[in-house]
């Protein structure tokens, strides 16, 4: 089946991922050009979700490499199962059966190899989705190693020789832009910046994820979160997941629209630290938020870049 922009969009939507045109086109380009997709943006806007959804759309395995400071090749590519090798050596000493050579050969067979995500993606039979999450957390040496792997999709294991992947995996890299990635890595990728959704998009997300929220409440929640992100200088802006949680909480409280009281008792779901709650209470407050939301049905708060 030939992949087109529209098909991809439908595919994503069927899996419950609401994406705007830009996201779909960029993902489509990454797939068509067979390049890694580098997704940057603030936390909680659905960066990781893209990879998960792509795996579902193409009905394939999702291989995830979670990055952290100090991650090295052993943890990312492969490692020999040292303990198992040791047992084998000890056993062969006790039994004194087979010859040295056979023991040595078998010590470096697939049986003793611990596959880590990168190798797994390379050896996979069906084109997998390889998610390299929070790439900005790794050290620069590892980043250099990574883009070597990503450009050829082959690795060499000294005992085995070079392994080349059967097909180029779908690679999704995510980054919170905590650190500037190297030019080399960026050059190899197709770049997508995901920002907080527009109220429109967020409304669609709420409707898709929490269908039991009534149309009026969904709209009000989407607008309220939009205002909160836009007007307040917060330490942590509410993410999409928090919007959804908030909608769920409101449904659980049997609310059919936002009122200052309801906002007041559910504020802890949107604001996750004391400073932000204080900022909200001081600079906006539940009353003003509700007033803003009710003010004008048509006006939508603009998004900040």
């Amino acid at each position: 089946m030939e992949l087109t922009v529209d098909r991809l969009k439908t595919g994503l939507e069927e899996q419950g991922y609401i994406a705007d045109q830009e996201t779909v086109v960029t993902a489509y380009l990454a797939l068509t050009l067979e390049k890694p997709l580098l997704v940057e943006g603030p936390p909680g806007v659905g960066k990781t979700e893209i990879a998960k959804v792509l795996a579902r759309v193409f009905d394939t395995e999702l291989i995830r490499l979670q990055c952290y400071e100090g991650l090295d090749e052993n943890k990312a590519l492969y490692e020999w199962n040292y303990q198992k090798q040791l047992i084998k050596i000890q056993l062969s000493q006790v039994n004194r059966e087979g010859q040295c050579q056979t023991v040595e050969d078998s010590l470096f067979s697939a049986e003793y190899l611990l596959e880590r995500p990168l190798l797994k993606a390379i050896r996979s039979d069906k084109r997998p989705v390889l998610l390299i999450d929070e790439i900005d957390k790794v050290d620069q040496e590892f980043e250099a190693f990574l883009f070597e792997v990503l450009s050829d999709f082959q690795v060499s294991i000294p005992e085995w020789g070079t392994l080349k992947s059967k097909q180029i995996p779908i690679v999704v890299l995510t980054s919170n832009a905590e650190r500037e990635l190297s030019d080399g890595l960026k050059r190899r990728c197709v770049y997508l910046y995901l920002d907080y959704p527009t109220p429109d998009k967020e409304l669609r997300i709420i409707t898709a994820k929490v269908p039991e929220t009534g149309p009026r409440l969904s709209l009000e929640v989407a607008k309220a979160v939009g205002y909160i992100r836009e007007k307040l200088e917060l330490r942590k802006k509410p993410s999409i997941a928090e919007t959804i949680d908030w909608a769920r909480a409101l449904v659980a409280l049997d609310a059919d629209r936002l009122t200052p009281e309801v906002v007041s008792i559910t504020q802890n779901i949107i604001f996750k630290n004391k400073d932000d709650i204080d900022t909200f209470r001081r600079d906006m407050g539940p009353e003003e938020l509700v007033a803003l939301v009710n003010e004008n049905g048509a006006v939508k708060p603009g998004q900040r870049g």
Partner: protein
Amino acid sequence: MKNVNPEGETLNLAMDAINPPGEREYIENNLTRFMHILRHLGVRISSSETIDAVKALLAVDMMDRRQVKTALKSTLAKSPEDRVILDKAFEAFFITPEQKAERTARNRELREKEAQEIQAVDDELKYELADEDQQSRDVSVPLTAEEKKIYSRLPEDKKQKLKSYLKKQFQSNPVNNPEQLITNMIRSSLNYWKYYLKFSGDGPPEVDYTGDEGTDEVLRDVVEKLRADEQLLYQDIQKITETDMPTAAALIAKLSRKLATRISRRYHRSKKRERLDIRRTIRYNIRFGGTMFNLKYKTKKVQKPRILLICDVSGSMAKYAGFVLQFIYGLSSVTENIESFIFSETVARITEDIAKSRDFDVTMAEIINRSEDWGRGTDFNRAITAIGDDYKHLLSKETFVIIVSDTRTLNVEKAVLRLREMKKKVKDIIWLNTLPKKVWPDTKSVAAFRRHCRMFECNTLAHLDNIMRVQMLR
């Protein structure tokens, strides 16, 4: 899934597909010109990315403007900042012929007006001079076009002042060739005004004008739009108004957090190596009869870097005081291990005041009330000596020193020596200089201090951001 051909072939194919052969060169030219413009706007594009862009254009619907833009964006602009630039450049470059004609006309008008202004300056700065033989002749001051432009933008009273000064000079100097002497004087005065007025035309965002009219037109258009939108970022920090301050403060806090993480990252990267912990390994493996079954490693403790912040709050820096304080405050709220000092003639430690984690306004009001350092002269030598003597324990190989100052100080030579000594004791010294880079060559102290630290120009938030993103990686 589409098969991707070898690169050369794909390129040709792309050209074929996009246009009939007769017009092939046209779109090719257009695309390369667009990349050219992006590069001049500071977006780094490699040739492999260019090829990607063409391939991407092949893959999308060329009739859909949004898709074309997305294709270019995803392959060429790989940071939020670059995306904004590409956005504006796209809108400025891919326009209808009518819009283009209109823009060209507007530009021409602008340039004509400029030429007129310069001509007017020429006339204004012309003087009649009577030489020894009592013959009068016309003398004009040989200024460059740029200097004339600055002059034309001066406020009226300053112009008058300058003119009367000139007149006096010309009349009271019956030497043979007074032009050169006077020109030099005028020039230095204009130079001052240039920075005072923030002479727009080559200010940030840094743009490389090409000299080609059509291209520069687009560049200018983009720069104008960028300035209008991202005003806060490119504005001189001293000019940020009260109303913009909360937004600016948030930006500064974000940037200082970036600085803090960047420093710590750069720092312990080299200390990462794992080493086998033989003692623990043997002890643990006794249970396996001494077979080294489970290996234990010791990792070096990640040592958080200590930051020593030394900020100039003297008279010459008064305009930047707001920024300096926001910067101290922002940096302090994200790193624990920070010592802050402010200095002018003397030095004061303000670490504790800031550490109390109160509101910015309260903290700052208190510091300002208590300290006597505000707005005085600058004696960096005394400050750095005092820190070296009284706070010796703060200077170690884990310490990053950040200095915010304009380098204008008493006792430059002694201070330089002190700085050199300090440099030996600490990990690194970063100097954020609020003086515009263009006057660095004329400022002796800059050159002297620069030898012993990494100095960056920093008088707009865009600078600070740039330091975090690009400079610190070098």
